[in-house]
């Protein structure tokens, strides 16, 4: 059921809209492009820059945590007297770094890379389409996203600094916070809008533009994962966009959506209408933010499936089970949100309901992980750089997922809520989990996007250094949490139970700085390979999915001849064949 389209040759320059231009200007080709590959790279590169920036904010915070009250040499002076008086971090600045680290990593880093970057670049290629269903909407999506990002970063310059009420922005604190919070809200409105434009595009593209022979049950798992992700974004983001507008109004228009009556701030009664409820924000926020964490993991699971199938040289185990699980996971993700709110005074009926749904949602996650581990059995495993990252994802996601159990059960959550245990839990899933899968994706699809291989040796160094550092950073956090250490503390040594685990803070900080340095081989590799990497043809990994039929890099319109699909997505090591891979796009023989 594909839309009729013309075959576009490599370099023929027929634009999708049939303008008849044979050469696009530099601006239309590389900046305001409607080509999904250009947009994918724009998103991808922007996101990688913000990932490093967001991580740098954390590396700063880790100095204060390891050595509370100590001046930071050199950098301390550069950041100015407001943020770092005498080179010592101010508590307000610590809180800004914390709120912005979370916000930037989630909304400006991981999701734009996973969905905007990989989704945009790979999905049309994997389904045999010449582009997304709505190329101009795609361009609009990026150009609404980027101003949102710039506004978010500029908020550091606002009087009083950037947002400093956590990435969760709970009122009343966020309602009374300095100007940076207003800029955060405006920025989120732009970023959310961009996401909504993109998600509609993904859904229509996957439903309408699949190549001939590409039924739903022949789609690569990556595409299924992106389809579910698109639905999560489309349905979950609007409440947060609405809530952001409500909070904006509380801040600038005198409303009291989230402000109860009778507030006294620093001895002065707050002159507002009152009658609002701070918990309303929490419900609206978490209604998005829980599905959001599945947005963070699903594309990663998709990438892991692709890389594991390719590097085990056999079909993924339990493909249909994986698809059913990921769809069920998507549905369930909408009915667990209040497990973030167990300590707000919630009644027993609601909390029992959300505890139960939270336990239920762990099942599809366990099934997906099991299918991936079973996929290794009977394989012929090549440990390429992408495979190292994709393989490591499995135990890392296991640790992250398992440590969610004590948090999802209310009785143990009494103790663990808002401690470092939570930080360890979600970072295991997102950092050596999703981020590793995203690195796997970069190493895997870089040749398709650029026509060059990345250097394998540097890739392996990048992997091992990052893997080791990740353990030193996040494993100690579970112990800090079990000791009762609260999160978001500028100086944990104020508390005896904080002093008891302070030694671990030094270990974690050294790990974090080590992780920062470990990215150097990756950055060097990324740019060096562009210039002098080994050139590759269409299918350097001997893979089976449709993107490997297109040239590396694909031209406008992607495929030289219209692709037709003849078989399932992971037909590796089929008995009786001459090679150990039977691509989807190759006719019998």
């Amino acid at each position, binding site marked *: 059921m594909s839309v009729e389209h013309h075959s576009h040759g490599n370099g023929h320059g027929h634009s999708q809209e049939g303008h008849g231009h044979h050469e696009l200007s530099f601006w239309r080709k590389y900046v305001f492009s409607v080509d999904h590959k250009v947009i994918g790279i724009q998103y991808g590169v922007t996101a990688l820059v913000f990932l490093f920036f967001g991580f740098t904010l954390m590396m700063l915070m880790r100095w204060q945590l390891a050595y509370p009250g100590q001046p930071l040499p050199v950098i301390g002076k550069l950041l100015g007297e407001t943020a770092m008086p005498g080179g010592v971090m101010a508590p307000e600045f610590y809180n800004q770094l914390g709120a912005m680290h979370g916000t930037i990593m989630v909304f400006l880093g991981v999701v734009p890379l996973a969905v905007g970057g990989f989704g945009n670049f790979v999905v049309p290629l994997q389904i045999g389409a010449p582009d997304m269903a709505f190329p101009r909407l795609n361009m609009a999506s990026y150009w609404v996203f980027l101003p949102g990002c710039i506004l978010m970063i500029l908020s550091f310059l606002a009087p009083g600094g950037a947002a400093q009420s956590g990435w969760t922005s709970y009122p009343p604190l966020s309602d009374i916070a300095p100007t940076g919070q207003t800029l955060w809200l405006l920025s989120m409105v732009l970023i959310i809008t961009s996401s909504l434009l993109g998600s509609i595009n993904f859904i229509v593209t996957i439903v309408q533009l699949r190549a001939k022979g590409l039924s739903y049950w022949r789609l690569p798992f990556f595409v299924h994962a992106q389809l579910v992700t698109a639905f999560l974004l489309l349905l979950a983001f609007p409440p947060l966009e609405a809530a952001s507008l409500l909070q904006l109004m509380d801040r600038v228009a005198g409303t009291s959506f989230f402000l109860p009556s009778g507030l006294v701030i620093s001895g002065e009664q707050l002159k507002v209408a009152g009658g609002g409820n701070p918990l309303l924000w929490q419900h609206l926020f978490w209604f998005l933010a829980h599905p959001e964490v599945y947005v963070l993991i699903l594309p990663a699971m998709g990438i892991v499936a692709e890389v594991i199938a390719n590097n085990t040289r056999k079909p993924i*185990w339990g493909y249909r089970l994986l698809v059913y699980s990921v769809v069920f996971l998507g549905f369930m993700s909408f009915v667990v949100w209040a497990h973030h709110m167990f300590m707000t*005074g919630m009644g*027993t009926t609601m*909390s029992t309901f959300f505890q139960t749904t939270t336990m239920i949602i762990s099942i599809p996650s366990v099934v997906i992980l099991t299918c991936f581990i079973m996929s290794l059995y009977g394989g012929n495993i090549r440990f390429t750089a992408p495979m190292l990252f994709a393989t490591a994802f499995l135990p890392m996601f296991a*640790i992250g997922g398992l440590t969610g159990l004590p948090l999802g059960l*209310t009785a143990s959550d009494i103790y663990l809520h*808002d401690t470092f245990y939570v930080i360890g839990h979600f970072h295991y899933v997102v950092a050596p989990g999703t981020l590793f899968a995203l690195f796997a994706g970069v190493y895997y699809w870089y040749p398709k996007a650029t026509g060059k291989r990345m250097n394998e040796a540097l890739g392996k160094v990048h992997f091992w250094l990052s893997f080791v550092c990740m353990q030193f950073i996040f494993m100690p956090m579970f112990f800090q949490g079990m000791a009762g250490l*609260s999160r978001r503390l500028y100086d944990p040594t104020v*508390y*005896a139970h904080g002093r008891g685990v302070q030694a671990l803070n030094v270990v974690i900080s050294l790990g974090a700085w080590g992780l920062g340095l470990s990215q150097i081989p990756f950055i060097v590799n990324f740019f060096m390979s562009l210039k002098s990497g080994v050139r590759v043809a269409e299918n350097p990994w001997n893979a089976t999915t449709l993107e490997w039929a297109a040239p590396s890099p694909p031209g406008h319109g992607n495929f030289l001849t219209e692709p037709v699909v003849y078989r399932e997505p992971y037909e590796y090591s089929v008995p009786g064949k001459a090679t150990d891979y039977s691509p989807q796009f190759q006719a019998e023989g």
Partner: protein
Amino acid sequence: MDEKIYGWWLPPDVSVHGAKIDQLMSVLHWFMALLFVGWGIFFVYCLIKFRARPGHAALYAPVKAVATKYIEGFVVVIEVFLLFGLSTPVWLAYKNDVPDQAKAVHVRVVGEQFAWNFHYPGKDGKFGKADASLISGDNPLGVDPEDPPGKDDIVTVNQFHVPVGKPVVVEVSSKDVIHSFNIPVLRVKQDTIPGQQIPIWFQATKPGHFELACAQLCGLGHYRMRADVLIDTPEDFAKWQAENAPPPPEAPAAAAPEEKK
């Protein structure tokens, strides 16, 4: 205050309901470790046995894994047990087992940026009225000095005295933003939401000097929103109440009850 009790795992539990929470934690972590080690062994086995090497090929046909069905079933059964056998009963007891209000010590806790205010009702057992307009440096909760029940109230800042062995009912609230009333050794935590008074209760089992740590980001002073928790013997608690009771009124003609303990 004994620093040595704080290490890298749960601090001592000095509450009546804490043992069940600690037991759940223990069962959970053994279960998690079992799953991780089990999966991990199989994972490493596969990586070694099925690595690519000359003459080795992959198996196209999917391996029939009966074992995984049993393992999934086992995981589901354990999760149901954890949920309905362990967590839910503990949670329901924590929330619903209201102590006998007559026997309990009542305290109102009001968090603010960046201190904890504790309001005790005094000998008459009644809380005096409070009004936001009366808040001042000396009177952080705005207790009305004209209101008779409030004349014997005790208000402390960052000092939380409770008697050992008696139920304590705490109503938590906040003046400004969301804080969180959190005492690790008592295994209690409750967000303090401005505009709401939320009750929680506990009973301490051992006297000692411990800490309360705000557990919800509340501004630049969140890190220093610490209160001393003094779990007193009944004698020490009575002594403290007597020492901190407001002085009796001056006028000799007034039939004011003697503030005697």
